[in-house]
């Protein structure tokens, strides 16, 4: 699926890498696997290596992990892309499920959901976010109404993470998208705004070469240590 996104703030390739999954999913954040509360508890299933005659077609994921959505929202923060259901599940490669400091943890994408395989930008055929400036613009100069109409972005990313994502687009989401953008329009006028394309890897665009060379794509553990990792026992949905 291809989609356009507006990204407000300085270029943050690490953040954009966390929203894509070209070579396996990004493993950014260790999350406790065993959490429980009066309103729910987590679960998992270690998937057998050869679960079906289609093993050759299966993903390499080995553990299907499920958490209560309120816990993930609390643990990952308000920028996590989570559905409305009470449980959120995803497959995690077995090597990213480990016992750390005495508790089982799984390493998952920083925003839980990824939106596409790759991202790219700066293409001449429709790279302008403003009616009069090429390639990129600033909060103080953007013609927001014209650009929303022109690109119909399904993803809005602020300086700290995504604030709007509507992949299905089955309902009228324009008012919710506008509400998500309004706080970003109060950022300093010189804050950059970029149009970023998200899509599949098979597009033959030379700019992707630069993307693949990005060191953040290596997912070196040292590149993304969370500032702090609260423990499961601290989970307090009502707090």
């Amino acid at each position, binding site marked *: 699926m291809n989609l356009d996104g507006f990204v407000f703030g300085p270029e943050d390739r690490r953040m954009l890498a966390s929203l894509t999954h070209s070579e396996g999913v990004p493993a950014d954040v260790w999350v406790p696997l065993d959490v429980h509360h009066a309103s729910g508890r987590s679960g998992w299933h270690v998937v057998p290596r050869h679960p079906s005659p289609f093993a050759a*077609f299966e993903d390499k994921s080995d553990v299907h992990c499920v958490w209560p959505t309120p816990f993930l929202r609390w643990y990952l923060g308000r920028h996590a892309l989570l559905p409305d259901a*009470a*449980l959120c599940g995803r497959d995690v490669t077995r090597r990213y499920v480990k016992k750390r400091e005495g508790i089982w943890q799984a390493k998952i994408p920083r925003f839980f959901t990824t939106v596409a395989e790759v991202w790219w930008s700066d293409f001449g055929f429709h790279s302008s976010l403003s009616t009069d400036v090429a390639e990129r613009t600033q909060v103080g100069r953007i013609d927001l109404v014209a650009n929303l109409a022109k690109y119909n972005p399904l993803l809005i990313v602020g300086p700290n993470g995504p604030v709007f994502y509507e992949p299905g687009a089955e309902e009228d989401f324009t008012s919710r998208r506008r509400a998500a953008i309004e706080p970003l329009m109060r950022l300093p006028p010189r804050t950059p705004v970029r149009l970023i394309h998200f899509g599949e890897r098979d597009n033959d665009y030379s700019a992707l070469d630069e993307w693949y060379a990005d060191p953040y794509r290596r997912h070196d553990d040292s590149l993304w240590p969370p500032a702090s990792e609260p423990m499961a026992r601290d989970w307090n949905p009502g707090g």
Partner: protein
Amino acid sequence: MFLTAWLIGDGSESVLDGLTAEGGYPTAEVWVSLDSIRAGHVSRLPTHRSAWATRTANGQEWVDFAIPAQTVIHDVGRHALIDPGTLAYGCALATNIEERDGALMVKVPRYFTTVGTAWTYQPLGPESLITMCGQPRVWTTVKHLNVRASMSRHPDLLIEACGPRRLSPRSESHRPDYYYNAAGRTPQSSIERELGLLHPNTVIRCAWITPHSTEVWL
């Protein structure tokens, strides 16, 4: 948008009734454990553990849950409509959750889940049964059925008296089509062979199902 089902042989209508949740409220018939956990070696992650969480929708309290396939097979049976080998997602009104003999249990539909709110023989879409003469029909018999041409219409559900099987999600585009229930995944080619082995006078009928308005779980 409707789901299409083939009802194969006698006794399959009651199966489809069990897959239908009138008004969006599935009939709760079978108790399943929500406390399922299987421990492995002490140094290893337990093989599986069920998950659950509460939510409120339209003023009612619901519980979403994910239960290991082994537990569903044990408590519901091999014809539960779940994809085997991983966790099966479902939801129930909180009133269908009870602690029984010290274990948390949830009461689920006969085949663990439901697929829609109503079903009918009234054609709501193109007929998917193709005869040897190349004619689309709403019902036919095995001896008149062009199995391969009919299966190329990809019916969403195959329903026999012993239980249902469902077509794999289309989003998994890199794998061949298969039909699943708790007993396993059956490639479409094997389904075609199975149909060919049925008694020639076995009747197959098309039915159309009104799906749930939204998927309530992932």
